[in-house]
């Protein structure tokens, strides 16, 4: 296990270096990528934030609390993209649907090691994370939140939950591309887009059944809204920890089971299509 852990770190270093080289090889491209990422991230949250500022709050949260929630969303999704955004690991249905799993099967590494490391892009993928860091810091300052070790542990817990839910859903639904490569090639992207659009909204005031649905079956409420409430100390502890942990565990387990079943199917049927778009793109 120690050898595998060492190899994971070595591969992270490798992909970090490749990402850095990619960033530095063309300054104009690098600046355009960073600028477009920044504009994309800021515009994605502008709607909710402007509404909150205009009306002094929205969905049961003040404007500063909304800023904190949006900051947390950027931080968590940015971290997820930084770790798994490269070469379509987060958008796994693309790799499967394009017949590119073959490239993984000829590498003498366990698949989980490849999936854990290949998407690492700490430089080109850090934009969302950095924006989230600035927004969260600004919100913490305005809200005078006490930064204790427990608070930081809770923050780490919710960041992990966000990543687990995002990847869990992407891999769970993305595994369908093993059976229907053409129809499901973009299903992971759809799921990530859905999370991105709904995960930034405060959900207070919704009917109970809808709120329940958005915290379990389609768990967008667990991506930023509930973590923000918890970190702002507005929820009771059992719900703060138990619900996200339980739902994330269900999604991750289902994703692992379905992905393995999909791989078994792939070993029987392979994929009769192959998109040569740069084999990891």
């Amino acid at each position, binding site marked *: 296990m120690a050898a595998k852990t060492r190899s994971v770190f070595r591969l992270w270093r490798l992909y970090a270096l490749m990402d850095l080289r990619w960033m530095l090889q063309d300054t104009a491209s690098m600046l355009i990528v960073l600028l477009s990422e920044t504009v994309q991230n800021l515009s994605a949250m502008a709607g909710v934030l402007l509404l909150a500022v205009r009306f002094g709050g929205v969905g049961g949260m003040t404007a500063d609390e909304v800023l904190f929630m949006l900051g947390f969303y950027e931080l968590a999704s940015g971290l997820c993209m930084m770790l798994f955004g490269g070469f379509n690991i987060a958008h796994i249905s693309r790799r499967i649907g394009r017949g590119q799993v*073959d490239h993984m099967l000829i590498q003498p590494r366990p698949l989980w090691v490849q999936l854990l490391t290949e998407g690492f892009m700490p430089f080109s993928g850090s934009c969302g994370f950095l924006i989230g860091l600035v927004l969260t810091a600004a919100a913490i300052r305005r809200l005078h939140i006490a930064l204790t070790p427990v608070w930081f542990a809770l923050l780490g817990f919710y960041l992990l939950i966000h990543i687990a839910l995002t990847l869990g859903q992407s891999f769970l639904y993305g595994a369908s591309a093993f059976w229907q490569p053409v129809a499901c090639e973009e299903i992971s992207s759809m799921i990530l887009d859905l999370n991105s659009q709904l995960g930034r909204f405060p959900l207070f005031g919704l009917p109970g059944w809808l709120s329940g649905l958005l915290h379990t079956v389609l768990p967008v409420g667990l991506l930023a809204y509930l973590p923000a409430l918890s970190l702002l100390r507005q929820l009771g502890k059992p719900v703060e920890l138990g619900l996200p942990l339980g739902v994330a565990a269900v999604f991750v387990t289902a994703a692992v089971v379905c992905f393995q079943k999909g791989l078994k199917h792939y*070993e029987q049927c392979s994929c009769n299509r192959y998109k*040569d778009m740069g084999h*990891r793109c």
Partner: protein
Amino acid sequence: MSNAAATATRTWDTAAELCHVTKYFDQKRPVSLFKREVQRIHALDDVSFTLQKGEFAAYAGPNGAGKSTTFKLLSGMLRPQAGEVRLFGMDPARSRIEVMRRTGVLFGNRSELWWDHPVRASFDWKKEVWDIPDDVYQRAVGELRDLLDLDDIWHTFARELSLGQRMRANLALTLLHEPELVLLDEPTLGLDVLAKRQMIDFLKRINREKQVTLLVTSHDMDDLTEMADRLLLINKGRLAFDGSYDQLVRTTGDSRIIRLLMRGDAPAIEGASFIGTQDGRHVYRYDAAALTPQQLFAAIARIHGVEDVELGREAIEQVIARLYEEWRR
């Protein structure tokens, strides 16, 4: 074949082995707006062969014969419905990691190069992922850059390479970890004459000098004839021939070609069949075992207006093309 019998065929000298392998796919085809019919396609049907270490074998067959399926089975990407696939005595699907350390796989229409990086970066990447020791890496890179003429493209982005350059870089990358077995699916695809020559020379050299076992597919039979000592012909999922080119020629008959230069329509030659007219010459095929030279020349002498006669062996490519045509029928 029973497990015991299958095991009995294996030796330490065996690089790859297929024992009574059957692989089929069920394809759904729409027959009407709401109705679909399942058709079973037999990609491989009870195929067996063994590749000894150091062998250079060509694997050929018409489109859809089962070549790529065989390569995917050997690479552990697919599992058979029946039979056994073994590489170095291991099941490639179960022992994927160990097998892949000793095997190089290259599909002609795919690239292992990192698209948005210089060629060099893909080699650095492979060194880490395959855990190649520094000394092996330095030696292999030095040799491959030299033999495959990679120096000019070493710092070029993979996306900017021509097809021939990409194939050379891909082949070098496939061989970087010094695999014992190399599976090459269409390695000469799209290459010009010079690039093809380089590729063939290189493959023959590593087979001869390093005893690398090679299994190569190509649609260009001239290439395969030149490269490999052994020919495996597959048709409709069945192994139709396994042997040397000489054996193939003996099996298909000692087929010869006559070219007659003359004006007017092609006359009939007793014992030979007219194939067509190329560059003003009428071309005939005959079986040298059935028609003696005396009979042949006597038949030609009876034809008026012959300006020139050329005799020769039928190219292996034509022999196989004729076989494919017969199989298709």
